[in-house]
């Protein structure tokens, strides 16, 4: 058993920021990650990070209040406004902090950080480093983690929480390099494992974004909040769903349909291509569904040609490379074929504004958590911000928690050994099982069901059919087994263990969506097209029911107090 | 990798810098040397003509610089190559460096001794 004061699961922006904060407070911190932290999916973020710095010439009148309002409105008023205000206030400070740590933001002539317009924002407030902002931020935090000597356990697949007497006391991890399960005990655990994009077949996310952290917390009894709100990014590459940043439109790119029209005129005449993502994604999907895709094909064009080679090479070099490598299209010469693609899970582990969950000792931050600041639809540039702001807050609160808790006994060793034993038994059973189902086939099937039945447009009949399919997949998933039982770098083991959590997370999403009889933000139902504040201005909570197929759903009110819900127009 | 295994090889800057400086000196001095041996004095190479040329202080200087730079450049180059193979540890690298310095200085002294009649 390995002990540290704090165990952080996940080495992306949220996890590293939390670890650095806790370490600076004097705690002994370890980060466990399935990949080297520098390879985390945060690094794939492109466009930028929002903060009302007012550096852009047209952004002088910007303020954190306006940022908070845009975020609230963008999220269709489902976000908790106290959390949103906290985030937009902290935003300015954390950006300067990242800059002081060496993050290579792009610069204006006077040396200040550049900002660009982004979707749903009243002012250009998205701070960026070319179109590789996530990569730059991530590497800056990796560097700081090394500087502060945060202990990194790399290539550890964390699969279970250690819970003793209702308190979280650590995790069990599969050591991919040395093999075997090991208990990592700690006074507190911070889950920062990112989103669950891979429950969809058409995701922009990394292949490791399977929602493992959400599933771990869920299985330990912590509710998942607002899981039905899945963001579809308007511009994923047609063939691979690889992300084409919103910055492409922020810099002036057009969305064009098969008739050569800038179709956003019809959907958001004022904001055009820079309306919030849910609206732009629905617009694109409508064009495709109504046969106005390019040559009748199911995609539209993202056209950057009018920006000119110089601007593309300076501001958008990363997506140009991606378009060339993965679509065979050079955006300087040709428009890029794009489709709406699953991009972000607004929902996640239910936390308060300091990242604490209902379970003492368990924290969550970043995409795997739901504070909630994004409400029903996240604005571009707010996800990077969320990771850093709430990672930092979680790291600080862990210190307060460890100082203040009355019971200072070390973590219970027996509980840790029992948890390791439980994992070993599980793997043993999988190895012995006479598999009649194939885990990979089930995963693919599940991802296609979510894509088909819980996509941009949803309705009762479709979702019911989808839910039935998911339930049957869940049943069949009990019959999978291991094909390889080696110790070292056993991908068969990891990918098989992933399956249960992925299906459970998908079920939370599906049941939450089916239950919510309204359209709000990214959750759009063709049978209930209006937002229904009277009945549905509330968060969904999904609780795990051991032995049952799906979650128990509960609801809790949204925290208002700053802005009254109004109709969204862009 | 151990931290001390990197720092044990201190310096290196002077070796690198002088490799560059000697390279430039070689180009210049070798050019002068070749021009005066093969172009200006073409068809007339004998002990006496060379002796006459070496009577000029400038030529002596060029030849001594050529000798020193060439020796350093060659032996340091050899040292860089050998350090990639057997002479990797600090001890061996140090021993190699000392031996090469002795060889180099010996060559230099021998060369200057050969030129001594004109120097004096």
């Amino acid at each position, binding site marked *: 058993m390995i002990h540290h004061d704090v165990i952080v699961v996940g080495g992306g922006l949220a996890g590293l920021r939390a670890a650095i904060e806790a370490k600076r407070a004097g705690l002994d911190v370890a980060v466990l990650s399935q990949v080297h932290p520098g390879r985390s999916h945060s690094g794939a973020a492109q466009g930028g990070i929002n903060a009302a710095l007012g550096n852009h010439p047209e952004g002088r009148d910007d303020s954190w209040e306006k940022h908070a309002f845009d975020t609230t409105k963008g999220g269709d008023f489902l976000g908790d406004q106290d959390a949103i205000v906290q985030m937009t206030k902290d935003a300015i400070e954390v950006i300067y902090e990242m800059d*002081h740590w*060496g993050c290579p933001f792009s610069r204006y*002539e006077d040396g200040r950080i550049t900002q660009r317009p982004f979707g749903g924002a009243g002012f250009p407030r998205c701070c960026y480093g070319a179109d590789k902002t996530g*990569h730059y931020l991530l590497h800056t935090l990796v560097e700081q983690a090394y500087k502060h000597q945060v202990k990194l356990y790399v290539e550890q697949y964390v699969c279970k929480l250690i819970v003793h007497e209702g308190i979280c006391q650590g995790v069990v991890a599969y050591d991919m390099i040395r093999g075997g399960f090991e208990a990592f005990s700690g006074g507190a655990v911070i889950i920062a494992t990112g989103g669950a994009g891979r429950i969809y077949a058409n995701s922009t996310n990394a292949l490791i974004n399977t929602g493992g952290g959400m599933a771990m917390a869920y299985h330990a009894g912590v509710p998942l909040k607002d899981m039905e709100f899945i963001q579809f990014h308007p511009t994923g590459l047609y*063939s691979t769903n690889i992300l084409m940043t919103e910055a492409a439109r922020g810099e002036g790119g057009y969305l064009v349909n098969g008739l050569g029209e800038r179709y956003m005129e019809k959907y958001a005449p004022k904001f055009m291509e820079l309306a919030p993502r849910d609206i732009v994604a629905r617009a694109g999907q409508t064009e495709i569904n109504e046969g106005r895709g390019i040559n009748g094909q199911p995609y539209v064009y993202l056209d950057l040609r009018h920006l000119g080679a110089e601007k593309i090479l300076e501001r958008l070099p990363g997506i140009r490379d991606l378009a060339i*490598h993965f679509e065979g299209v050079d955006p300087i010469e040709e428009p890029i074929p794009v489709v709406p693609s699953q991009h972000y899970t607004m929902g996640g582990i239910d936390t308060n504004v300091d990242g604490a969950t209902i379970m003492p000792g368990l924290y969550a931050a970043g995409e795997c958590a739901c504070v909630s600041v994004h409400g029903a639809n996240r604005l571009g540039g707010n996800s990077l911000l969320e990771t850093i702001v709430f990672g930092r807050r979680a790291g600080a609160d862990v210190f307060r928690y460890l100082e203040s808790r009355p019971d200072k006994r070390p973590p219970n060793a027996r509980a840790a050994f029992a948890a390791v034993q439980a994992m070993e038994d599980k793997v043993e059973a999988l190895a012995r099982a006479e598999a009649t189902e194939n885990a990979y086939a089930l995963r693919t099937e599940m991802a296609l069901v979510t894509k088909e039945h819980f996509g941009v447009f949803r309705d009762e009949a479709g979702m019911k059919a989808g839910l039935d399919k998911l339930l049957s997949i869940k049943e069949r998933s009990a019959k999978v087994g291991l094909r390889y039982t*080696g110790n070292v770098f056993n991908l068969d083991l990891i990918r098989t263990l992933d399956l249960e959590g992925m299906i459970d997370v998908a079920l939370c999403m599906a049941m939450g969506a089916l239950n919510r009889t309204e359209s709000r933000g990214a959750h759009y139902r063709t049978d209930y097209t209006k937002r229904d504040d009277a009945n549905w201005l509330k968060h969904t909570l999904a609780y795990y029911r051991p032995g049952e197929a799906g979650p128990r759903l509960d609801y809790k009110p949204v925290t208002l107090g700053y802005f009254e819900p109004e109709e969204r127009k862009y | 990798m151990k931290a001390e295994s990197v720092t044990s090889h201190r310096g290196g800057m002077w070796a690198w810098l002088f490799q560059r400086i000697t390279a430039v000196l070689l180009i210049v001095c070798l050019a002068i040397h070749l021009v005066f041996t093969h172009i200006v004095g073409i068809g007339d190479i004998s002990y006496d003509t060379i002796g006459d040329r070496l009577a000029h202080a400038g030529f002596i200087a060029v030849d001594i610089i050529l000798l020193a730079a060439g020796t350093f450049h060659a032996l340091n180059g050899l040292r860089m190559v050998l350090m990639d193979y057997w002479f990797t540890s600090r001890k061996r690298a140090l021993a190699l460096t000392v031996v090469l310095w002795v060889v180099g200085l010996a060559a230099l002294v021998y060369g200057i001794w050969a030129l001594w009649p004109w120097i004096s």
Partner: protein
Amino acid sequence: MAEITFRVKRQDPQDKKNPEAHWEDYKITYEGNLTVLEGLFYIQEKYDGSLAFRYCCRASVCGSCAMYIDGAYRLACQTNVKHLDSAGSPDPVVTVAPMPHLPLVKDLVCDMTDFFAKYEYIMPWLIRKSPDPEKELLQSPKDRKKLDMPIDCILCGCCYSSCPSVWGEENYLGPAALLKAYRFEVDSRDEARKDRLSRWDNERGVYRCHTIMNCVEACPKELVPTEGIQWLKRAAIRRRLFGRLK
């Protein structure tokens, strides 16, 4: 439907019965495009669950899946089999091997411990001496431009694996770590004087680089580590002889 053979170098040093490296062939059928990474998943799912390889973003930004494919360093996710030399042949074969000259964990997974130890050793973080301003540290676009090349490094390890100086001297820091040192030393905001200098200004640091340029050829992001290393050599002289920081 197209068909292609993947010839994969397999080795499990833990396997007592068969610890040696060997090649195995797998037939893959696909429609449209196929990246090498997709091919590896196909093998892992359909033929052999024991195949080990690293993966993450599948969009060439994370640096996980660096391999030696058809005799060149490539990112598996970024490599479309149609762009390989074998593509034209009626019976195409793609060879996939782990990055050479690195210790092996299993199959296509190399041990990157030393690689990251050297990265850490170089002190890869911004060193500041003066107090932080209230707002951002100002940096001109001209100074920022100097960072464009080195900050794009994804730490995939291709350059490190390809460098003959690393093969000859296991303690040589290698191109990636030195490029990282360059990234900070060249940064106008960095105030390190001798903090980092002693770590790279020696014969297991920059002077071990013999400008062989394998790293430049290997880099899948088309970076030029050698340029950074040469800059560092000049910077050492500026700093030690003339006391100038940049």
